[in-house]
């Protein structure tokens, strides 16, 4: 392995940016491909697949054998609101492999008694997200119903290109939210990325069912990253 390649790869991993290390198993030469870099042909298609699935693999392309090692940041889920839905979502997300954090400045809601074994911040999103910024491997679900708490986080999520952004509330509630986000300077195409009403449409009624719908939508968004542009996903 080229020492410079290793150094660069570790820099990408520390910064939570996705990279695929491509090694030619014939001559040992290696290079780093970042997400969004264009690589032509069969090798390019295999690299794109590796980014999407996160599964490392050996592939035959151009008469050579390459090893593609996927280095994807671990996806995390940030939930704004220490509410009933979040209580159900926390253990489910953990089982599904999406570490979850909850942010809610209302200290009556954000208590360790209501959320055992969860990373819980009884603070304003502005303060928490300054310390641990959102990124493209983070999903954000805003479920407080309170614009004072949700709006800043939603704007931060679309600015950081979070792979999933969802907001609780009816279509009517969301229409008002769109107006507020436009006033905050968000673009209409950015706002269109917000899933609202939140969650896959499975007819969820109870808080726990809504949590399932949010988690399913998060997983779908994660596993179809980059596919929307190609029209491969409806």
């Amino acid at each position, binding site marked *: *392995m*080229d*020492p410079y390649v*290793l*150094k660069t*790869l*570790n820099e990408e*991993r*520390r910064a*939570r940016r996705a990279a695929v290390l491509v*090694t030619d*198993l014939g001559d*040992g030469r290696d290079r780093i491909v970042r997400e969004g870099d264009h690589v032509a042909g069969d090798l390019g298609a295999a690299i794109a697949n590796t980014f999407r699935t996160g*599964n*490392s*693999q*050996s592939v035959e392309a151009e008469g050579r054998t390459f*090893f593609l*090692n*996927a280095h994807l*940041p*671990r996806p*995390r889920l940030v939930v704004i609101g220490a509410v009933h839905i979040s209580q159900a979502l926390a253990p489910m997300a*953990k089982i599904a492999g999406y*570490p979850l954090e909850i942010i809610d400045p209302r200290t009556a809601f954000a208590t360790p008694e209501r959320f055992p074994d969860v990373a819980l911040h009884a603070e304003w999103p502005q303060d928490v997200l300054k310390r641990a910024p959102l990124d493209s491997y983070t999903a954000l679900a805003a479920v407080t119903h309170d614009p004072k708490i949700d709006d800043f986080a939603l704007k931060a999520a679309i600015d950081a290109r979070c792979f999933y952004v969802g907001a609780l509330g009816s279509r009517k509630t969301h229409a008002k939210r769109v107006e507020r986000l436009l006033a905050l300077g968000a673009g209409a195409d950015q706002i269109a990325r917000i899933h609202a009403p939140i969650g896959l449409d499975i007819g969820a009624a109870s808080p726990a069912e809504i949590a399932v719908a949010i988690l399913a939508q998060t997983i779908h968004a994660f596993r179809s990253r980059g596919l929307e542009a190609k029209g491969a996903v409806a």
Partner: protein
Amino acid sequence: MDESIYLDEARDPLIIAEGWMKDGKDVAIATVVETWGSAPRPVGSHLVIDAEGNFHGSVSGGCVEGAVVTEAMDVIGSGKARMLEFGVADETAWQVGLSCGGRIKVYVERLG
């Protein structure tokens, strides 16, 4: 299970390999490049080895690490990468202990 979203720098094999390199050590990196059956560690897993035989990480959860470390010392010496195969079909592999029923292919290369 580690639930941090950040790298565990003290245990991450590739971070350790970079640190060894900065300390002027000779280093080999072993990578699982293919698995069949019930392999204990997924494709992409690393074991990193220095010239004294110190190692971090794992390619098989303990079954074949000893053999990989031995091969890695040769790779550090020669600079020539090697492809190793371990599995129950292989007499040597059975001796070194991949008795879990899987087969793995491990690529061993020198850093630099």
